[in-house]
C-alpha cells in the first residue's frame, strides 16, 4: 500500500463560485451590466424562519370549516370617500402592460376578481383588458407617467403613488426594445423598439413636503373619492412609512427586496434593499408611533408564496399582502411543461428570468404574438383564482389553530423564530426562549 503524493480533489472557491465566474466572463465580454427580471435570488432570512404557536391548553383553537375566520380587509378609509373592501387580504401587485402581455393582464384581472381582490396597473398605463376584467383596479402613478391621464384616473378604484420597489429602491424601471411594440409605444408615447429607461424620481415633486401637495392635487382631481396608496421599496421602512403617513397616504405599501421586477440591473436586485421580513416591524412601528396602525393600512410584498407567509405577515402587523411573482407562476410562468424551450434559451424552468427579452415560452412576459397566444386568459385566470383561494384557506387554517376569528387578530406573540437572524428581524422570540435579540 502506498500513500505517496495522494492528490486533493479539485476545489472551487466559495467566493468565486461558478455563477460569479460566469458573471465576470459575461461582463468582460459585453461591457455592460447584466439586466434581468424577477427578484433577489440569494438566500435571505424569510418567513420560513418563523413558526406559529398553535393553541392547546392555554389558548383554544377554532374548528375548521365550522367556526368562522374572516379574511376581509378595508383599504383606504382614512381620507377616501370610497375605500376598497376586499374579500381577502392578498392583492395583485403592480405589473405593467408592456412587461406583461395583454392576455396575462386580463388573466390577472379575471383571477383576482373571482377571488374578490384587486389588481394593479404598472409602468405603462391602464390597458382595456385589465380594466375590463378587474372589478377592483389600483392605478399606479409612477415617475414616468407613461399612459397617465385623467380619464383612467377617474376609472380607477384607487391610486398608488409609486416611489420605489423592493427589487430596486432608488432606481427607475426598464423595458427593452424587444417589448416596445406599436401598441406599447403608443401607450407610452415612445418610439417603437427603443430601450426604455424610466426616471428614478418623480418629475414634479421631491420629498415628503412636496408629496403632500401632490397628494392634495390627486385628491382634488378625483374629488377625494379614491384611496391613495404610497408604495416604497424596503430600505428605510420606519422613516419612509412615517413620512408617507405625514404626507397623507391612506395605505402604505412596503415592497421587500425579494419583490420582483420586469427588468433591472442584477447588481441592484441582489444588493440594494432589505429582506421583506426585516421591513415589516419597523414599518408597523412607524404606524404605531403615529397612532395610525390599522387606520392607515400596511400592505407587505416581496416573496409572499403561500398562506403561511400571508398569515405571518399579518401577524407581524401588516393589513394585507401583495403578490407579483407568485401570481405569474400561478398563470404558468416558468412551468416545466416548457422545459425544452427554456433549455433552448440557455436556462431551465424555475430559473428563467430574462423577462425583458420578450421570449417567454409561457407567453406571459412577452409581446410576441405567437407566444402571447399561448396563454388562455380564462384558464390562467382560473388558475390564479384557485391559487388565491388556497392561500386564503391556508392562512385561515393557521389562524384558526391560533384561535382567531379574523386573520387580522394574529399577533407577533403568535410566532416564534427558528434562527437568531429571523428573531432579531421579526422581533419575535427565538423558539423555546423569551429572547428577542437586540431588544430585551
Amino acid at each position, binding site marked *: 500500500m502506498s500513500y505517496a503524493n495522494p492528490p486533493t480533489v479539485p476545489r472551487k472557491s466559495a467566493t468565486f463560485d461558478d455563477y460569479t465566474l460566469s458573471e465576470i466572463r459575461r461582463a468582460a465580454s459585453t461591457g455592460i451590466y447584466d439586466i434581468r427580471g424577477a427578484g433577489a435570488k440569494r438566500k435571505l432570512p424569510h418567513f420560513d424562519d418563523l413558526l406559529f404557536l398553535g393553541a392547546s391548553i392555554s389558548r383554544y383553537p377554532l374548528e375548521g370549516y365550522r367556526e368562522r375566520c374572516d379574511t376581509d380587509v378595508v383599504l383606504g378609509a382614512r381620507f377616501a370617500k370610497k375605500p376598497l373592501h376586499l374579500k381577502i387580504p392578498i392583492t395583485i401587485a403592480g405589473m405593467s402592460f408592456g412587461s406583461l402581455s395583454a392576455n396575462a393582464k386580463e388573466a390577472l384581472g379575471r383571477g383576482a376578481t373571482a377571488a374578490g381582490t384587486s389588481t394593479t396597473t404598472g409602468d405603462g398605463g391602464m390597458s382595456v383588458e385589465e380594466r375590463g376584467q378587474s372589478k377592483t383596479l389600483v392605478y399606479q402613478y409612477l415617475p414616468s407617467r407613461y399612459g397617465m391621464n385623467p380619464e383612467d384616473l377617474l376609472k380607477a378604484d384607487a391610486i398608488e403613488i409609486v416611489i420605489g420597489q423592493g427589487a430596486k429602491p432608488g432606481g427607475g424601471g426598464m423595458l427593452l426594445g424587444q417589448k416596445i411594440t406599436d401598441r406599447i409605444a403608443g401607450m407610452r408615447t415612445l418610439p417603437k423598439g427603443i430601450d426604455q429607461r424610466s426616471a428614478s424620481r418623480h418629475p414634479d415633486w421631491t420629498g415628503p413636503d412636496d408629496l403632500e*401637495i401632490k397628494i392634495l*392635487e390627486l385628491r382634488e382631481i378625483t374629488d377625494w373619492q379614491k384611496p391613495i396608496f404610497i408604495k416604497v421599496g424596503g430600505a428605510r421602512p420606519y422613516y419612509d412609512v412615517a413620512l408617507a403617513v405625514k404626507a397623507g397616504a391612506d395605505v402604505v405599501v412596503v415592497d421587500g427586496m425579494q419583490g420582483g421586477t420586469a427588468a433591472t440591473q442584477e447588481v441592484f436586485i441582489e444588493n440594494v434593499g432589505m429582506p421583506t421580513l426585516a421591513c415589516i416591524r419597523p414599518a408597523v412601528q412607524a404606524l404605531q408611533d403615529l397612532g395610525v396602525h390599522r387606520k392607515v393600512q400596511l400592505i407587505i410584498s416581496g416573496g409572499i408564496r403561500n398562506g403561511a407567509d400571508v398569515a405571518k405577515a399579518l401577524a407581524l402587523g401588516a393589513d394585507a399582502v401583495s403578490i407579483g411573482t407568485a401570481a405569474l407562476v400561478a398563470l404558468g410562468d416558468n412551468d416545466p411543461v416548457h422545459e425544452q424551450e427554456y433549455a433552448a434559451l440557455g436556462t431551465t424552468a424555475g430559473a428563467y428570468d430574462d423577462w425583458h427579452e420578450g421570449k417567454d415560452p409561457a407567453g406571459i412576459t412577452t409581446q410576441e404574438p405567437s407566444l402571447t397566444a399561448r396563454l388562455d386568459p380564462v384558464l390562467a385566470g382560473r388558475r390564479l383564482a384557485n391559487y388565491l383561494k388556497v392561500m386564503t384557506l391556508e392562512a385561515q387554517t393557521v389562524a384558526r389553530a391560533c384561535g382567531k376569528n379574523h386573520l387580522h387578530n394574529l399577533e407577533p406573540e403568535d410566532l416564534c423564530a427558528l434562527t437568531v437572524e429571523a428573531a432579531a428581524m421579526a422581533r419575535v422570540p427565538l423558539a423555546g426562549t423569551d429572547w428577542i435579540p437586540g431588544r430585551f
Partner: protein
Amino acid sequence: MRTVDLSTTELRNLNQALHELSEGTNETEWQITNPRGSHAVAVGVNAPIDVTIRGSVGYYCGGMNRLAKITVNGSAGPGVAENMMSGEIIVKGDASQYAGATGKGGLLVIEGNASSRCGISMKGIDIVVRGNIGHMSAFMAQAGNLVVCGDAGDALGDSIYEAKLFVRGSVKSLGADCIEKEMRPEHTEVLGNLLHRAGITNLTPKDFKRYGSARKLYNFSIDHADAYG
C-alpha cells in the same frame, strides 16, 4: 361670469363646482380671486370653459386640464399644467419648476420666465415661454414642442426622445443625447403656428434654432455606457 373668492371659499368647493361642469354648460366664464399661492387650483377640469385667476397660484395649477382655458394673472408655482391633456393655460407672470411636466396635449404659454425642468417628460404638450427657461428643461421629453423666446439653462433636453425644442437665445449647455438639428419646412410651420397661437407677433421662426434627440441612447450600447451612469 361666476366669481369664486378663495379667501372665503374652500378649494374643495371650487374644484368640485368646476368638475360638475360638462360640455355644453352655460357657465363658461369663471373668475377666481385671492388665490394667494394656493395649490391645486382648477385641477382636473373637463369642460370648455374660460377660467381667469386673479393673482399667483401655488403648485399644480390646472393639473390634468382637459378643454378649459385657464389664465393666471400672476405667477405659477411648481408643476403648472402638469399632465395637461388639452385646452390652454396662460401664465402672465413667471412659472416655477416643472411647468407643463408630462403634459400630453394642449398649449401652455408662459409670458414671463420658466424655472428649471420646464417640459420635463412632456408627452405631446406644446409649451411657449416668452422669457428664459432654467436647467434640466425638457429632461426625457418624449413628444410635443417647447418654444423658448429667451435663453435656456444647463442640460437642455437631457435624455430627450422625440420632443422638438426651439430656442431663440443662448443655450447654456445641452444635455446627454440632445443636439442642434436642422430647421426643416415642417418645423418652421409648427413653430410659426405656435408663435401665432401664443400671440407672439414680433418674432419669426427664423429667429430660432431647433434642438432634438441624436437618438444615440435609444438602444443600450457599450459605446455609450458612460451616458447611462
